């Protein structure tokens, strides 16, 4: 697998630059919103990628609760962390897009609000991992991840209904999508998926090495313990 990493890195770089070129130059300018609509090609794929990463976190957490294998635990941690990064991108690009178009920084648009709540849930998940003093932190984190995932449909329906009662501007597709636009959108999504995969892979390796180092340090403390007696 070691060989695959550089290949993925190159593919990601190519896709990202191609996607950028397509989004900024090639894609047709939207009639009403003008060029600022091109934020759409970064905003929406980032959201999809974030949701996918949180789905991976849920699956990994359930696997960990059943099999208690360290791999699942590390994957859960990694997918949550990288998911939060993509979520942050959505929460930053969303308002930047809303400002010129509707003159407001924040709108309780369904996707934006859902992303905000998910961001809060998974940041609290990462906080639990950092503040926990128990030797069974992965178990508690996995349980919280399950709770977070159970919450998602409830969050979706509560915001959806809230929005039908209080309609607010919609960030997003805005009517039927011009096929060429859809094409650019998919390219960028593919680019972001590769980027997510690349970053997750790196973070995963990093976590494995970190745990090995911690293991070695505690063993060293062990030897020291016997040695100095």
């Amino acid at each position, binding site marked *: 697998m070691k060989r695959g990493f550089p290949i993925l890195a190159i593919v990601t770089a190519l896709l990202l630059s191609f996607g950028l070129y397509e989004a900024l130059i090639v894609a047709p300018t939207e009639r009403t919103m003008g060029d600022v609509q091109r934020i759409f090609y970064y905003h929406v794929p980032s959201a999809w990628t974030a949701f996918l990463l949180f789905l991976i976190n849920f699956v990994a957490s359930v696997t960990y*609760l059943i099999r208690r294998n360290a791999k699942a635990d590390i994957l859960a941690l990694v997918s949550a962390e990288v998911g939060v990064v993509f979520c942050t991108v959505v929460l930053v690009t969303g308002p930047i897009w809303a400002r010129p178009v509707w003159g407001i920084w924040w709108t309780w648009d369904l996707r934006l609000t859902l992303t905000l*709540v998910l961001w*809060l*849930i998974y*940041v*609290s998940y990462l*906080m*639990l991992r950092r*503040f*926990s*003093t*128990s*030797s*069974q932190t992965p*178990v*508690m984190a996995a*349980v*919280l991840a*399950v*709770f*977070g995932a*159970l*919450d998602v449909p*409830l*969050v979706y*329906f*509560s*915001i959806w*209904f*809230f929005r039908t*009662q209080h309609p607010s501007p919609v960030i997003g597709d805005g009517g039927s999508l011009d096929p060429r636009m859809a094409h650019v959108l998919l390219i960028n999504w593919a680019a972001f998926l590769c980027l997510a995969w690349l970053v997750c892979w790196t973070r995963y390796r990093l976590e494995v090495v970190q745990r090995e180092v911690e293991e070695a340090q505690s063993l060293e403390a062990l030897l020291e313990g016997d040695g100095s007696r």
Partner: protein
Amino acid sequence: MSFLAVTRATLAKDLRLEWRSKDAINAMLFFSLLVVVIFSFAFDPTAEESRRIAGGLIWVAFLFAAVVALNQTWARELRNHVLDAYRVSPAPADPLFLAKAVGNFIFVIVLEALMAPLFIIFYKLRPLGPAWELLPIAVLGTWALVVNGTFFAALSIRTKNREIMLPLLLFPISLPALLGMVNATTAVLTGEESAKFWIALLLAYDVVFTIACLLLFETILEAE
């Protein structure tokens, strides 16, 4: 040690202890009173639009009181490591959770019973919609906060700063329930919309998380 017998015994024990040392409930009642007064100062009760946001005010006030109460859930068990005595016994974990959750529920409902009339008086509230709906909203909403609150209080026992950890875990996950409670109450107070959807949402929330808590409580109790 049947499930029900242990639940009843644990709940009876908690209520007896609460009744015996009433200092906890008195402190909490006074705290809730303070919260209501502060809200009344912060949001001008005489203004017409206060009626529109009263639903939100009431539930945020209840949330404050609930979190402070929930932080005490396991205090007594931790003082003399009594939780270890429970874990060493053959009694299953779920009755302990259920008894603690129901105990909290009663505790928070008592606080709400004090706060609600004060809000009605201060804000001169008169529900325009079907007033009887406020009962299921209060019950389902409080249970939504308490069931997850009791669970996350147990989860945050083994974290560094325990008091702050509970709200950090509880609030994000409770957002749909909060949206439900606030909008349902506002719908009833203003009478402009129907609260049916929100009550259904609260019911779904309660069912989902009560089951999740019962299934996963033992896992975190045993997590040393």
